[in-house]
């Protein structure tokens, strides 16, 4: 059996089994945890296979590409899968005590597993219509997770989330229809070949902008990010962490994949003129939002926006004419940044969940004193916060340096200035969150009576600690991480290998 079917099959089987165990929540928990662990192991195996430079291809039903749907795992997909597996395990452990029993008994575990299935499918597929289908799979699971529980605030957030994502899907579908009409194929490798020899490159460029808009809504790019801070803080921490770690990154992944493999016909327009300023604005808008928000979870939602901007600046700079080395450096920085930011964002949202439970709120104006009453949590929070701000030696530092250096090499001083300004805003926001939530004496004592069993508290702090260790390891091991990202960037910028792996050797 081909390894590539497992990242979809494992969550599917686990979700189906936990649906069969509907009456027993504790059985569902263990099925979900085992499923997540198995997924993490398989994803790590796929990652290690892609690290040799091999592009693993699975043609479903033995229909050769481009006629059938193919799953393709290259270095980029391997990295994304690895992070997905780790985050899945962390979130499942957290939800043992972080999710209330109402949500648990109404299908929380099957839904998270279906979400994971959609995410893995989106990372693996080599067919752009199939990508649409996986998007819908993960979206419908996320819609239900977003509104599960039915709190007023949650439903208000869910209306915005659902609407904007449906608009994005409709645009994606429109773009797909026009793309198929003009190029006659949906296999991404085949599209890459045909775009290069298209009769009407202007039409393809117009289409690529339509794809750009559809994916920018999903990845929360300026000016289409408004739905994210309006909804991500409303569901419980385990759900927000899963969304923060994985969902916007699927959008970023889709942008990276399509704008390195397919739409490279007019990079001066699509990458340099359209994407680069938008990504730079995203960094500033996210940074400013992060700085001024008074609710910790809302601030983290803006942190997601800011980090999406940094990653997409790296992608956009691959379209700037100039030295090949600078293009590789920029994309490698972007990939390393996306990889580490998945861990950071999941960790921050889980941490915010613990804060909310301990203090009854995430409002920086009313909480305080966490450094004395929860010193371990405070230490873990500091790691996540400083990694987001990009303080060495944590994981956010090296990729940002790479992107800034690539920008300076390309004589794009304003881009470097935007990233650095974004970092300053992030640091200011981090300092504020730290002093308000952790250092300042508490305004009111939380009720000690609500303390629950130590085992439950442990189930919440362990995943936060584990993700913090990942962040430290990714920071200290920046060299190997960056080497892997650089190899992935080289593979993306020269799609001939990908095309040969998918379409066969005759080309």
């Amino acid at each position, binding site marked *: 059996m081909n390894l590539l079917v497992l990242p979809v099959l494992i969550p599917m089987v686990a979700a189906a089994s936990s649906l069969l165990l509907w009456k027993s929540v504790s059985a569902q928990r263990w099925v979900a945890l085992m499923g997540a662990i198995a997924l993490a192991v398989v994803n790590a195996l796929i990652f290690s296979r892609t690290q040799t430079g091999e592009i693993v291809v699975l043609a479903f039903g033995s229909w050769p590409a481009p006629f059938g749907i193919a799953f393709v795992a290259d270095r980029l997909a391997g990295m994304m899968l690895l992070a997905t597996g780790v985050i899945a395990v962390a979130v499942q452990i957290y939800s043992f005590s972080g999710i209330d029993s109402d949500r648990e008994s109404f299908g929380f575990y099957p839904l998270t597993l279906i979400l994971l299935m959609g995410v893995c499918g989106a990372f693996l597929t080599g067919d752009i219509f199939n990508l649409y289908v996986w998007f819908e799979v993960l979206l*419908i699971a996320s*819609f239900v997770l977003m*509104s599960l529980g039915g709190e007023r605030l949650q*439903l208000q957030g869910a209306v915005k989330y*659902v609407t904007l994502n449906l*608009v994005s899907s*409709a645009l994606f579908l429109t773009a*797909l*229809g026009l793309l*198929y009409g003009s190029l006659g194929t949906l296999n991404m490798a085949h599209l890459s070949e045909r775009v290069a020899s298209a009769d009407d490159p202007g039409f393809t460029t117009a289409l690529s902008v339509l794809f750009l808009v559809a994916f920018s809504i999903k990845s929360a790019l300026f000016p289409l990010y408004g739905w994210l801070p309006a909804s991500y803080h409303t569901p419980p921490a385990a759900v927000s962490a899963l969304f923060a770690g994985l969902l916007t990154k699927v959008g970023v992944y889709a942008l990276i994949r399509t704008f390195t493999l397919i739409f490279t016909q007019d990079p001066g327009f699509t990458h340099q003129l359209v994407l680069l300023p938008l990504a730079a604005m995203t960094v500033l808008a996210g940074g400013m939002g992060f700085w001024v928000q008074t609710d910790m979870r809302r601030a983290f939602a803006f942190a997601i926006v800011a980090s999406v901007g940094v990653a997409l600046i790296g992608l956009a700079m691959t379209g700037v004419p100039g030295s090949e080395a600078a293009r590789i450096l920029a994309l490698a920085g972007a990939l390393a940044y996306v990889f580490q930011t998945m861990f950071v964002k999941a960790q921050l949202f889980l941490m915010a969940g613990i804060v909310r439970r301990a203090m009854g709120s995430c409002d920086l104006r009313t909480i305080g004193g966490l450094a004395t009453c929860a010193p371990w949590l405070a230490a873990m929070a500091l790691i996540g916060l400083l990694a987001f701000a990009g303080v060495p030696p944590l994981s956010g530092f090296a990729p940002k340096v790479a992107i800034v250096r690539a920008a300076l090499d390309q004589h794009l001083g304003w881009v470097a200035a935007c990233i650095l300004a974004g970092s300053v805003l992030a640091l200011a926001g981090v300092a504020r969150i730290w002093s308000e939530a952790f250092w300042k004496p508490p305004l009111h004592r939380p009720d000690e009576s609500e303390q629950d069993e130590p085992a439950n508290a442990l189930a919440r702090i362990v995943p936060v600690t584990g993700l913090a260790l990942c962040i430290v390891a990714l920071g200290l091991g920046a060299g190997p991480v960056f080497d892997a990202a650089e190899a992935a960037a080289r593979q993306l910028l020269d799609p001939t290998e990908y095309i040969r792996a998918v379409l066969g050797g005759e080309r």
Partner: protein
Amino acid sequence: MEWLLALAIGALYAGGLYMMLRKTMVKLLIGLAMIGNAANLLIFTSSGIVRSRAPLVPKGAKTLEPPFADPLTQALILTAIVIGFAVLAFALALVRRTYEAVGSGALEDMTEE
């Protein structure tokens, strides 16, 4: 034939967008449904409308003789219709629950506080 479909698609997109810009959630949903259908019709039209046979290879022949209808777009639309139906059903339920929880169907009441 194409021009007629093109007009219909344009009208659906325009109507859908107009409905989405109205003030209530129900109209928003109608707008979303219209845009989804517009996209499906667009896929259908983009592969070319031909007066032709089903894409079956005749007995004894090795390949298809044009003109034949493209079967792939129909498969794509079928997938998109099913997905759109499920998503719309969910959105309807969500709107109803939100109406019950918030006590209003107006989009301007969807902000917090």
